[in-house]
């Protein structure tokens, strides 16, 4: 298959390719291209605080395999990660750690809140002195996944939703930069 056909056959490619003699011309916008590239190579941070982490590991393993969508390079350091999947309960003592990890990630960065605990505290919402009632009290969240814990399919759906969000336009950081100017 010709390169042009290959690229055009991928519906998500943000632009057109025109075949010319001896090559071709790509018509696109830089923002579109960059977001397209970003969305297809998101490196998650190896971060899990409870049982949702087991589902996340399962999603990474061969049966579900999120590397099919560009998430295979799980990083053990926030400095190399693009997306943090908050997989589990965030307790008050973990709050500052989560904030620090998020701050250490390079822009642009994305956050997925996986499971009931990360969304709202979940089963620990009432009568608990130690649990943060939703990770979005600490860092901004892009995609929420309900479930306790969510199935791997749900995590895959969330990852694809995040990709769509990135491809569809400006990221949170980009909006922040634009509003400064």
């Amino acid at each position, binding site marked *: 298959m010709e390169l042009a056909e290959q690229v055009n056959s991928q519906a998500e490619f943000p632009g057109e390719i025109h075949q010319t003699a001896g090559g071709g011309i790509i018509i696109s916008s830089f923002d579109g291209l960059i977001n397209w590239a970003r969305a297809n190579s998101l490196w998650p941070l190896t971060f899990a605080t409870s049982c949702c982490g087991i589902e996340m590991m399962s999603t990474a393993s061969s049966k579900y395999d999120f590397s099919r969508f560009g998430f295979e390079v799980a990083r053990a350091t926030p400095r190399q990660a693009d997306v943090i999947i908050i997989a589990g309960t965030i307790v*008050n003592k973990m709050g500052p750690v989560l904030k620090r990890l998020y701050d250490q990630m390079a822009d642009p960065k994305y956050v997925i809140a996986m499971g009931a605990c990360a969304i709202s505290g979940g089963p620990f919402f*009432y*009568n*608990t*002195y*130690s*649990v943060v*009632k939703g990770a979005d009290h600490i860092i901004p969240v892009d995609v929420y996944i309900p479930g306790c814990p969510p199935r791997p399919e749900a995590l895959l759906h969330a990852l694809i939703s995040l990709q769509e969000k990135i491809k569809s336009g400006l990221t949170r950081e980009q909006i922040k930069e634009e509003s400064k100017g």
Partner: protein
Amino acid sequence: MTNEEIKEHISSVLPTATFDETGEWLNVLIEPGSWMQLAKSLRFSTFNFDYLFCLTCIDWKTHLTMVYHLSSSVHRHTIVIKANLDRNDPVIETVCDIWRTAEFHERETFELFGVKFHNHPDLRSLILTDDFDGYPLRKDFEDPINMIKL
């Protein structure tokens, strides 16, 4: 060894101890003041209770109950020792020089229930932050900032 033998031994050491055999294990209710004496005799007698596998506390609102689960890795028998403490001034002797594991568990019971363990070498918070106020596993614990009441 049978529960009858254990009961006989405990009665000879502590005549005031009362027994309850309705549960899975033999329960012994004792006065907190006599705990050290009983603990030593259980550990170093022929019954050889060498394994303290659970140390915890219960808040009954009227009083606190210390609960010790003891077992012997030689004879394979298990008993439960309970002692009621005054809720306003809960004090009991430490057993961490008899069962080393108690050092750790007594710190946890101290931070969550406020039970003070006499002669404990290092009685400070285990998991909670040093500035944490109150005993969170007591039934009347209030924390209007972090806690949402049902």
